[in-house]
């Protein structure tokens, strides 16, 4: 199970990674493995304003469907259109090419509230 040390994590297995003034959001390797082969990804639209914990989409495999929640409050600035035609990207490279969306965060303090890589690894170990 891969854990990106540059990311912070929610207990619902979303990650957030700072990139300039924005944050890249996706789901962790643990999550994509549990879901199995991803067949479809549905995401909220660019421009949507989010509160932390708000539902931002659904990731579907053949046997399961998982809701995705915003790890941070902010406004969606980009959505990974590549996933529409190639949802397998999410399985192959969830921290890189399989990113879900980018947000402009609105509450800097929330970042500290997310689990760091070590804490997330420990959390996954408990499951």
């Amino acid at each position, binding site marked *: 199970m891969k854990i990106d040390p540059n990311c912070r994590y929610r207990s619902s297995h979303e990650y957030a990674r700072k990139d300039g003034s924005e944050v890249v959001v996706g789901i962790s390797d643990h999550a994509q493995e549990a879901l199995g*082969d991803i*067949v*479809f990804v549905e995401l909220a639209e660019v421009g949507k304003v989010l509160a932390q914990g708000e539902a931002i989409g659904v990731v*579907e*495999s*053949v046997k399961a469907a998982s809701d995705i929640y915003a790890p941070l409050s902010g406004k969606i600035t980009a959505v990974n259109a590549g996933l529409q035609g190639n*949802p*397998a990207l999410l399985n192959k490279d969830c921290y890189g090419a399989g990113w879900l969306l980018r947000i402009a965060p609105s509450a800097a303090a929330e970042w500290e509230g997310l689990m760091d890589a070590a804490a997330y690894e420990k959390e996954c170990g408990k499951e």
Partner: protein
Amino acid sequence: MNLKEEPLLFELSSPGRVCASLPDCDVPATPVPPELARGDLSLPELHELGLVRHFTRLSQKNFSIDTQFYPLGSCTMKYNPKVNEAAASLPGWRNAHPLSGAEFNQGALELICSLQAWLCEIGGFAAGSLQPAAGAQGELAGVLIIRAYHASRGDSMRRTILVPDSAHGTNPASCTMAGFQAKTIPSDAEGGIDMAALKAALDGSAGGEVAGMMITNPNTLGLFERNIEAITMAVHEAGGLVYGDGANMNALAGVLKPADVGIDIMHYNLHKTFSTPHGGGGPGAGFVGVRPDLAEFLPGPIAIKAEGRGASREIYALGMPATSIGRMKAFYGNFGILVRAYVYLRMLGAPGLRRVAEAAVLNANYLKALVEGSYKIKYPRRCMHEFVAQGDLAEGVHTLDIAKRLIDYGFHPPTIYFPLIVPEALMIEPTETEAKETLDEFAAALLKIAEEARIQPGLLTSAPTSTPVGRLDEVSAARNPTLCYRG
């Protein structure tokens, strides 16, 4: 089994071939306005023999109750008596129109009325409706009745419905459709409802928000809920109603009336306990029965018997309960299915129902005894008409592989990966219509497969190899769905 690929109708089509045999038009023609007229109609063109061979060959690619043992847990795949089919195809039923009037449909109305009464009697309910088209519709009706009940009492705080974590997916889905939030109650170490968790959910202000609870008994583990009376009492004390999911009535008809242990509303699946055929996925029929004060909310129309009609020929009629939740579908239910259930019940009577439950429970316990040496049974206590085993036999071998390998042994697999609270679940329900020899053969196959899993797991992971197709690439099918012939 037919192992050969069968072309699609469109691939067998040849322009100019005709199957339909219709009379010429015997009245003057009226022109169709060109702006309304359809251009091309793309349907296949086959001659009758081609059509018959096609569907006959297709049918030979199916496993079915008439050809294989089909121990699907929670589905009650019992034998579908042929007499049911003979009864349902009588011309007086086939060509009966729902709107020609009560005067011209006394036979149908009497049948529905009688069946309503008998299904009520079996459950201990005061009134019932056969309008729902399926179990899931019966469930939705049940939850809508709960909603109507609280609304009628001006109780608008009741927003949640408690649902066990072992519940069938239709339960929480029905809650959502009726505007409730489903709140999950965990199961305890014995496979029953966790009473402490239940009490906590019903305590104080949380309890005031509980509209009711949906419960399946025996539950989806095949276990009888030993605390059922305490559970229903607790829900009632908190002001809620108890809804019974009757999918497992095969273990209970003639054994226990659910109303006697506090169930207020219940649905039965006529296509499970009452032997109507599964038809490759339907049609089903759902009966919903209620305690006396809920009768006014039942979905309708229902059949009613008029009292004191004297010499009138019209005894049976249709009526809408006083504050009905409304219609679940058009007309009066899946009548053709109701005819089948009626005949079945007439042949069985009360003694037959009890024998069915006894035989179903006996068969399940016997099969469990045969396999429990080789398969883990998470909750090993006495089961009722079905039991749940675990398929994690060896490293790299999953329940899915056992299921597929059973196919090579000539059996339809049991239900897999349900209920969700048992990992690698295999839910096995033999039903009462299976002979002991069949159970012995099935158990022998399961034991052989357990052995294969240890010494030659490739046989499982590559199964099935005796079918028209092997395991299909469901991932690609879902990523780029082709849902239609496109030429």
